[in-house]
């Protein structure tokens, strides 16, 4: 093999770089995100009223689509009331509807967004509810 020394050193550096994240994290998987829905606002509601605008599975997978639609409907189309599939009416607003129940942005939004490395720019403008514990 020509240039064996250089090639082997190069290979070692490459393997080192690739393996670095695994070694650095100690070989453990990052803890699974566990978003919390136990805010005082939600706990205040009666057991059968503790549900989101749409079913949980839909909100989990498609909340970003819903928020995008809400934003366009409110800002561009002058509509503010959303009738959910169960017939209940909501005012379409991230700050005044979603975050009134989910007042725990850190434990609700950031938990999964950080895990999946998603950086939505909502909070550049929308004001985050004041949280007691940090």
């Amino acid at each position, binding site marked *: 093999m020509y240039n064996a020394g250089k090639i082997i050193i190069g290979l070692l550096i490459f393997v080192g770089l690739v393996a670095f994240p695994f070694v650095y994290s100690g070989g453990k998987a990052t803890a699974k995100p566990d978003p919390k829905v136990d805010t005082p606002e939600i706990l205040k509601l009666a057991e059968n009223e503790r549900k989101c605008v749409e079913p949980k599975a839909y909100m989990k997978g*498609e909340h970003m689509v819903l928020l995008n639609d809400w*934003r366009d409907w409110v800002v561009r*189309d002058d509509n*503010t009331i959303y*009738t959910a599939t169960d017939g209940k009416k909501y*005012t379409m607003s991230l700050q*005044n509807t979603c975050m009134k129940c989910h007042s725990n942005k850190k434990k609700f939004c950031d938990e999964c967004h950080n895990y999946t490395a998603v950086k939505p*720019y909502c909070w550049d*403008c929308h*004001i985050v509810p004041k949280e007691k514990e940090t």
Partner: protein
Amino acid sequence: MSINRREFLKIAGVSTILGIGGVSAVNSLRNRVEASQISPSPEALVAKRWAMVVDMSKFKSEEDYQRCIDACHRVHNVPHITDNPKHEIKWLWKETYEHAFPGNEDEYLSEEIKHLPFLVLCNHCDNPSCVRVCPTKATFKRKSDGIVMMDMHRCIGCRFCMAACPYGARSFNYKDPRPFINEAKENLEFPTRTKGVVEKCTLCYERLAKGLKPACVEASNGALIFGDIEDPNSEVRKVLGARYSFRRRPELGTRPSVYYIF
């Protein structure tokens, strides 16, 4: 393995049907939110075209102006930037006669009017030049009531609208406005803006949807009159029908919706 034309077409046909069927099945699960599920708020104030009349005779003291300006800037979390006049954010502000009505200055104009500050804001033009130039439609004229709106989500900060607006009604966020908002007075029900977007008066669209008049009108003690200019029985039309009024730079053909009376 060889395959004849007949078998190939069969396989291709079946997989096409499966493919299209699969996609539409997945899509029907995804897009469960239908446009028919939305409606305007029943308590919203509605008009064909909103307009405002500024009764300058009722602005007697500094405090009369400041009350309106403060009310507006507080509800909309408008930052108070004083260190650089170019960075200033203005929704509703005072302007001298020569700046508010350029071309109308008369050598022998009464001193009183010459030095009177005029309360100015976005004119919500019927033919808005800012809307024509916006490349992303971030600023647009609302079809329902003629408000010239800003969609901050779409604004890319190109500032074409600022160049196009003949009234200087638009302000650009050269820096993050958040540190310049008094946190104790912050309105938690309304967003702030971010660095790199243009902002201006939105005629309190969020208050109109709740059935409230704009914040400045509410705070003005009758000095600002607000109503539907296309309704002959509205308060604005009655005032405009009874008294002489003028608008800022009507010669430009933007047809402003803000009128001034003395």
